[in-house]
């Protein structure tokens, strides 16, 4: 029992001045991120306090901050949820097409084409939405209200310009398609090859193979990708600001002239002309948006981190 077999002590590398400077600067940069994020929260809160503390009569609308921000928050969530309802099935389809249906050689160019959708700036989507999409969908909306008007969502009178929340949601859906598609595609491609081949060997058709092997494997990935897309849609500003014809109301109808505005679009539209307490109110509403997206994104990250499927090398 000699003391040779002690736990080996870790060998400490010699610290040169260059090492100290370099590692200190990386730590500094990393800590700067903490500082920046804390600053974002702190400065927003500091500038919002006047709006929270103000006399309710002084806030726009005259009923206090919360009743000012409530319809906006509703519009934000409602628009993003419709966009998500449109985008998620489409994205899963596209991701499946690229990962399992398209010819192998075409897969990566096709993925690049879809990624191009993400490269288009949001203000251009806004122009396209109001210049091309909104006029184009009016006949379709008319048809919807005439034939499905009994369904509350499609109740009339229909907007004559097409600048409704459904149009906005369609544009938002196009904007969040690429991110959901890219993430789902990644996770579909990671499906264990043996699972797929086992399913096919048992005589499954391609669709049955996808339902038995690919989709169950990819479900958490799809959920988190959708949440990230939702976070994107919640914060999207310019497309909504340009396309929507807004009003301060809470309404589920999709095709009418008066639509609930979103927080982000309201800020973009009102900020340039605001002053004093109005500015504080807008910043406070921005803080609410920050909180909403933070919650949504945290849920997404939690789902991703519960299953470390994305991290690759080493």
């Amino acid at each position, binding site marked *: 029992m000699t003391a040779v077999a002690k736990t080996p002590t870790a060998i400490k590398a010699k610290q040169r001045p260059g090492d100290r400077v370099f590692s200190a600067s990386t730590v500094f940069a990393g800590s700067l991120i903490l500082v920046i994020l804390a600053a974002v929260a702190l400065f927003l809160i500091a500038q919002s306090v006047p709006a929270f503390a103000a006399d309710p009569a002084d806030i726009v609308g005259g009923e206090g901050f919360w009743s000012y921000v409530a319809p906006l928050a509703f519009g934000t969530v409602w628009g993003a949820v419709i966009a998500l309802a449109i985008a998620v099935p489409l994205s899963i389809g596209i991701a499946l097409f690229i990962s399992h249906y398209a010819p192998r050689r075409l897969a990566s160019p096709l993925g690049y084409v879809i990624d191009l959708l993400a490269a288009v*700036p949001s203000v251009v989507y806004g122009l396209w939405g109001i210049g091309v999409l909104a006029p184009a969908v009016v006949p379709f909306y008319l048809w919807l209200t005439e034939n499905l008007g009994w369904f509350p969502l499609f109740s009339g009178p229909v907007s004559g310009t097409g600048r409704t929340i459904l149009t906005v949601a369609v544009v938002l859906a196009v904007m969040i398609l690429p991110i959901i598609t890219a993430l789902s595609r990644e996770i579909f491609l990671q499906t264990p090859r043996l699972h797929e081949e086992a399913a096919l060997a048992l005589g499954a058709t391609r669709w049955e193979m996808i339902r038995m092997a690919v989709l169950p494997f990819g479900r958490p990935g799809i959920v988190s990708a959708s949440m990230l897309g939702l976070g994107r849609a919640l914060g999207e500003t310019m497309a909504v600001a340009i396309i929507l014809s807004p009003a301060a109301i809470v309404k589920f109808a999709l095709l009418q002239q008066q639509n609930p505005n979103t927080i982000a679009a309201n800020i973009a539209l009102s900020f340039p002309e605001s002053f004093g307490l109005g500015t504080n109110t807008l910043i406070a509403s921005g803080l609410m948006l920050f909180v909403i997206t933070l919650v949504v994104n945290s849920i997404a990250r939690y789902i991703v981190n519960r299953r470390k499927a994305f991290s690759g090398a080493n």
Partner: protein
Amino acid sequence: MAVTTGARPFANSLTAGRLPRGATFGVLAASWLVLLIVFLLLQMGGVTENFNLVGALVLGTVLFAVTLFAVSFAVEGSRLAKDRLATILVTCAFVLALIPLVSLVFTVVTFGAARFDPQFFSYSMRNVVGQGGGAIHAVIGTVEITLAAAAMSVPIGMLTAIYLVEYGRGRLAQAITFLVDVMTGIPSIVAGLFAYALFVLFTEPGVRMGFGGAVALSVLMIPIVVRSTEEMLKLVPNELREASYALGVPKWLTIVKVVLPTSLAGILTGVTLAIARVIGETAPLLIIAGFTASVNYNLFSDRMMTLPVFVYNQYVSQGQDAQAYIDRAWTGALVLILIVMLLNLIARIVARVFAPKSR
């Protein structure tokens, strides 16, 4: 009383109970043809005013899906029919996603070509009402603000990524990873509000300056740079680091001389893509950089026009001769898309040229 033992109904058991090979495309062509004829008849009968090609193709595709499903169900059974239906739906989803892309590119190019002339790139909007004018002030603003944002966020982002991959252990690294994720999700308009709330403390209320825009953009850009650099650094094989250590090279020199050059292509690609991402941001610049009609070279005082805000502003506040404003907006959008595409292209070329030689 001989029970007829089923005479073998089919000649070839391998192709039995299957639709022939060309069935899919045949049915597709047939259903499009049927709907085209229906719509043509409707038009000639005076029911619809003009020929509805889009409607014919959409309904034709629906008819195709239903017919093929029914036929396949009858001949091949429910499982293969479902498989065919799934294939159709998945392909339709892809085609559907291409429609907005094609339509958008087509619209921007056709409308944007109207004012895509030298004047657009040499004139500002100072004292311009109606026709004429250009976006040189916006181009200058975009270039300055984006460069300033890149100059701030690239060092911070890269060093943070190096910390996370090479040094980071324990609480701080976990916290930073989490917060970078949080930062990725910050809505762009909130970044703009942050920059405003920050600068309003040091200056007067209603402050507008280009540098504020750069700060807002770097809040959006830092997490993208961190994420992409981190991914690239993780791809560097550990053997390279260990070989360097074994030769007695200090850690920081290993990082600077071995790890970074190996991943340079990926990092540059990531930075270029990050620039392409933020160069189209409108909302934060609208908040903190504001809009103006004149050229402003100074980042630190006064309003500064940028290309996305130019597009928005021209479209929203149309004056006399509205068409001139709309044309300028579309041309601005075209220039913006061209810049973003160019940056994407550069990123791909960089990735290819600087990629480590593998032999």
